[in-house]
């Protein structure tokens, strides 16, 4: 196998193993940090009016 590809696969394997070893706390911290970045990029505060209403609305309809 091409040496570079072998190295690349080894690195990818190592990276995936590390990700699997992440704790729930670490994943939550990563998720919160990504959300902050997204909000900063979008330049606005979180919008709960669209998706959220649809979500709770769907659930209410199902119970009716």
């Amino acid at each position, binding site marked *: 196998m091409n040496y570079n590809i072998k190295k690349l696969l080894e690195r990818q394997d190592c990276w995936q193993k590390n990700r699997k070893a992440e704790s729930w706390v670490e*994943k939550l911290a990563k*998720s919160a940090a990504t*959300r902050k970045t997204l909000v900063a990029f979008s330049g606005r505060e979180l919008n709960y009016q669209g*998706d959220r209403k649809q979500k709770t609305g769907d659930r209410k309809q199902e119970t009716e």
Partner: protein
Amino acid sequence: MKELAQLLNDMMGDGIIKNYAVFGAVAQMRYTEAVVTMDADILIAVDDSESLAVLSPVYNYCKEKGYQPEGEAIRVGEWPAQFIPAFDQLTKDAMNNADESDLDGIAIRVVKADYLAVIALSVGRVKDFMRILALMESESVSGKEIQELAQKYNLIDQWIRFEKRFLNEL
């Protein structure tokens, strides 16, 4: 999230809610890789879930503790928390059968993978289907387990459609 876990436990201890469990993307991350989510969804049990002002005691309690509303959520530390009263048998059972997990020494109740998948099946948006696939890929729940639970909650047609659409060609 530790701050939110502590708040939820305090709410239980002070009798504001009778029970709770984290669900949605935050619960999913116990089993899968990290995903981006705008808030933490919390199922809660309250005394009178039929009342229109069912969340008032929760909001008032949070306000007293210094946590302010932000849209339809309440900001607790880094996380906007969305409180959703358990509204049908599926969500009630998901909450009552939740796991007690540990967040750096603070207990927190979290909906189990099989119930997360079946709630996602019942909601049925694209991102909910992605949640089911992620939970299955992480081997946290099997198709058989989802099917059994879907049968119990009259969601078997939705499960058959999901299987045809996403699993039969794998």
